[in-house]
């Protein structure tokens, strides 16, 4: 156990100190601040495509443009960027060392290959968690600081759900947990491809290609796609949004969590199996 903790500490230090790790934090901050700036200046116009449908008949009272809504919108827009930022680092954890040659040092130490893969995977999850914390800080706290508190007008394809400001903190908590689980699937997939491939770029590009293709399939309302949608992990990556419905479909959420966990277990198992058998020729 001591040996594993020592390796894990090494992996976390290496991951955090890599220059490219800071790219993710910078991009999240930039995107969040950019969106917040846009909503600050033109928020009402941007929202009018929804509220406009209501304003024919109703006066919409209350503070629609508030920190909770901005956070909700920011999180949705990051559905493609966040997996990329996760893959940018986690996709390089093994293949980067293989390409760089430092893998030779790692694998000629007493620690087993299984421990090394697991340590790298956990370091990747730790980085993913840090990214989410930064995202949470900018999307939630900075949005509240700029726009204030208020009820959340959650948009979904069937309409609106309005959630009271008093009833929202616990939803954000669980939403970020599910988001972490979702991004953990991406991190684990990237880690798996990183174990299989020998260069830095291919795992990252492959992860993005997989996510983009699966996301596109998920967006189309075609009966033939309905058969495969439940098995795509991207379908369940957005399940955090279900926490902002009324009533909350807990059954669907638990199903999504189960699918995501199955994907994680499958990907890490393949990683360990493959890496243990791999010849290191570089």
């Amino acid at each position, binding site marked *: 156990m001591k040996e594993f903790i020592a390796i894990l500490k090494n992996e976390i230090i290496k991951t955090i100190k890599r220059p490219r790790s800071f790219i993710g934090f910078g991009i999240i901050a930039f995107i969040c601040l950019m969106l917040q700036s846009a909503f600050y200046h033109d928020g009402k116009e941007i929202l009018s495509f929804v509220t406009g449908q209501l304003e*024919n008949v109703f006066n919409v009272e209350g503070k629609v443009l508030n920190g909770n809504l901005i956070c909700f919108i920011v999180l949705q827009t990051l559905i493609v960027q966040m997996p990329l930022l996760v893959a940018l680092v986690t996709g390089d954890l093994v293949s980067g060392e293989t390409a760089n040659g430092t893998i030779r040092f790692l694998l000629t130490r007493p620690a087993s290959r299984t421990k090394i893969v697991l340590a790298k995977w956990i370091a990747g999850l730790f980085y993913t968690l840090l990214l989410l914390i930064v995202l949470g800080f900018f999307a939630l706290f900075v949005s509240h600081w700029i726009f204030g508190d*208020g009820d959340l007008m959650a948009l*979904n*394809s069937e309409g609106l759900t309005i959630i009271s400001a008093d009833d929202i903190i616990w939803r954000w908590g669980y939403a970020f947990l599910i988001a972490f689980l979702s991004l953990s699937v991406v991190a684990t997939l990237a880690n798996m491809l990183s174990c299989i491939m020998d260069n830095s770029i291919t795992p990252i590009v492959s992860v993005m290609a997989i996510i983009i293709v699966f996301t596109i399939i998920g967006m189309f309302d075609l009966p033939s796609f309905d058969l495969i949608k439940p098995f795509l992990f991207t379908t369940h990556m957005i399940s955090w949004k279900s926490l902002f419905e009324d009533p909350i479909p807990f059954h669907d959420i638990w199903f999504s969590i189960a699918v995501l966990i199955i994907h994680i277990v499958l990907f890490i198992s393949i990683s360990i199996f493959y890496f243990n058998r791999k010849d290191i020729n570089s």
Partner: protein
Amino acid sequence: MMKKLLSILLLFVSYQALAGVDPKLLIRDLNKKFNQVSDYKADLYMEFNLPGVKMKNLKGKVVFKKPNKFKIKAKGIFFLPKQNPMQNMSEMLIDTNSYTSIISGYETVEGKNCAIVNIIPLKAQDELILGKFWIDIKNPLVYKSQITTKNNGTIETKSIYGNQIKYALPEKIIVKLEINRIKVPKMMSVDLNKKSKPKTGIESKETGSIQLNFSNYSINANLSDAEFVD
């Protein structure tokens, strides 16, 4: 269209003459009740049932001051019909010179024998097209209304009275309206886990309702204008 309306009006006038109830008198008695109230404050409980919108019921407060200051204060987001049933009704009926009133029929509402009074504005440029009020013949109070405006369509309200019946202040107002179901583009809602639904090809209006429950009225309490400021 106008000719049809006129012929119908003529029929109504004859019917009214036969019934023997003067709509002007009903409205006059009703307005007397409205005029007793300079201002009021009350607790409000709003219940929403709107197609495509899920929201919890909301507690708030309502304040009114003559002639036309009206505000609902509640924490959170909520929807009020563009035609405020409480404000519009009294405003519409107070100025008797701006409309013609005729009785188009009689109906029992909430156990009360009501005359259906139609209000037709005299000026074509007015926002109101037609207002229908079910007014209790014995104790003039509006139990039901149907107001059609140029920009906001038709809304139907039903009023239930309690302790403040003498001031014509309801205990409950139920507002029914027809609205299109709200549509959010999938790219904005990012719903990836919803199964596809068969498209009907027809977008029909659906009926929604808002129920306003009033309690703890405080009438003619000399409310200051500050109550109406955010």
